[in-house]
């Protein structure tokens, strides 16, 4: 993110560029106010009302928030489910992406094909993939349990079990490591070879090289992938929606075990039409994501930056 610097001389067009700069970014600025910052403010205001579209809104103070934290069992469940999902999916997908990137970085011919294969699920509709996995995870006729049976493991009922529904979701989310893998691969290619040569001269083995060269040099990439995947994990929606929605209860899963936070907000807003209440829920989600991101930035001392 370097800024074009050392411009001590100020050419004549400098003055013009000030206005022009704003003009160039003005579409985004207008959009930022109209479609992002404005709505966030409105959402904040709505969260203190009982608005339900049908009747006019009443200001009810903190009542939504009080109800959320004291009476709403589904809120606690949704929060738990989302943290569970993030705690499983973020580290596992980071590890898998890093592992795949290391394999792809061995310089073996034909690994481009493998990279394509790993990326492919990420360009295909989540709805199609979710429905497919719903079929593949069927306890009796699903191919996953069939393969597990071949190695002598009796597979669980996955989507039908309150214990296994979330692990199933985490498993499916691992299909989306393609972009992360590509980013890791670019990071690996950016590590200067002489560092490896130097540590080899010091007698470092494969593991030592990984621990003392690869990991520190890759830590900014790991950090970037971690921050973005936490944000994504907290917003998981479409996958859950299509994997668990049924005719009566939409996508809560067995014993509400897959009611993730984004789904709960959606239901409160667009099925129950509790717009005020849903806005309060959305604001809590926003704050959680913000705090999670800031915490990661705060505790990022393990990240090694080459310059400064």
């Amino acid at each position, binding site marked *: 993110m370097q800024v074009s610097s050392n411009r001590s001389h100020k050419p004549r067009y400098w003055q013009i560029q000030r206005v022009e700069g704003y003009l160039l970014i003005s579409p985004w600025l207008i959009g930022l106010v109209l479609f992002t910052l404005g709505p966030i403010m409105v959402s904040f205001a*709505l969260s203190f009302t009982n608005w339900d579209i049908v009747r006019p809104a009443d200001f009810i103070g903190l009542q939504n928030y009080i109800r959320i934290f004291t009476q709403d069992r589904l809120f606690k469940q949704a929060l738990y489910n989302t943290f569970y999902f993030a705690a499983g999916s973020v580290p596992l997908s980071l590890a898998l992406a890093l592992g795949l990137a290391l394999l792809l970085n061995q310089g073996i011919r034909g690994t481009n094909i493998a990279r394509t294969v790993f990326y492919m*699920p990420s360009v295909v*509709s989540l709805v199609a993939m979710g429905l497919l996995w719903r079929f593949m995870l069927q306890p009796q006729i699903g191919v996953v349990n069939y393969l597990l049976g071949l190695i002598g493991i009796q597979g669980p009922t996955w989507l039908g079990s309150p214990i296994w529904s979330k692990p199933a979701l985490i498993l499916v989310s691992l299909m989306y490591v393609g972009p992360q893998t590509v980013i890791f691969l670019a990071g690996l290619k950016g590590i200067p070879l002489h560092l490896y040569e130097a540590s080899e001269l010091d007698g470092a083995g494969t593991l030592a090289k990984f621990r003392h060269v690869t990991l520190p040099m890759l830590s900014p990439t790991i950090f970037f992938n971690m921050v973005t995947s936490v944000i994504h994990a907290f917003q998981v929606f479409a996958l859950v929606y299509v994997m668990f929605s049924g005719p009566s209860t939409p996508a809560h899963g067995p014993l509400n075990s897959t009611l993730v936070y984004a789904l709960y907000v959606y239901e409160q807003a667009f099925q129950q039409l509790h717009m005020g209440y849903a806005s309060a829920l959305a604001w809590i989600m926003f704050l959680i994501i913000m705090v999670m991101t800031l915490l990661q930035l705060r505790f990022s001392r393990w990240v090694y930056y080459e310059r400064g």
Partner: protein
Amino acid sequence: MDTNGDFSLSREPHTHSKGGRTVIGTWLGRKSIRRAIRKGLTILLLLFAGFFFLLPFYWLFLTAVKPADQIFTIPLVFWPREFVWRNFPDVWVKAPFARYTANTSIIAAFNIVGHTLVSALVGYGFAVGRFRGRDFLFVVLLATMMIPPQITIIPLFVMYRYVHWLDTFLPLIVPPFFGVGSAFYIFLMRQFFLTIPLELEEAARMDGASTLRIFWSIYLPLSVPALTAVGLFSFIYAWNDFFGPLVFLTRRENWTLTLGLAALANPQYIDYKEVMAAGLLVSLPCIVVFFVAQRFFTEGVTLTGIKG
């Protein structure tokens, strides 16, 4: 025992060479054996991982073309008795998939145009503009990536309802022209523009070219790869988007492919051969586009990831 075997094997190619170099020869031989093992292991692991990434796609295809009676038979059928292609036209006419395809294409086309146009302009502004607050606004741009759509969607829904945009394509095709959802694309374009030497611009300034002219005739022609990447990402995203259409579109004739696909799974009994046939049809454009243009995907992701 193990070391012995290793020793003799590694020595063999070198015994015929000069006797005085056995130590080095052994060392080299060991290294080449280790390299071979390493290579073999890498290929094995890549194949293993590739199997799990390809299996879903194979299963999607297989289920779509299996004869109906072979879908639920145990043991599972991994190669169909005969290929049933009829499922594709059947599901195509069962629901108005032609209409869904037209709708999705229109929305995707507007998204591609809006996102590429605006991300190029705004990215250019952030890359070369010298205006007060630029760096702050750029951080704001990056920060918008962590805003969950759940928080803005309720006020946006209210706003669109007020201007009678609900159940039209407008909520899905107008925001891209204001940089909404294009933070990643703007970031990508800016990173790319920063790689273009400023001397080019300064030379053009000397010749009296205007900012827009420089943008149009220097920056844009040079950034075709980046623009292509943005267009492709935008296409994939719009084609597969589920949350937006779910909230904003109601009447069936306005639905997109993902909505139509998800609706196939709503009844108590899911006809998996139809769902899979439809899923394959919906996914096919993305798979084809990805295969043809995968270079742009990986380069686009790399461009943004590396400096994050």
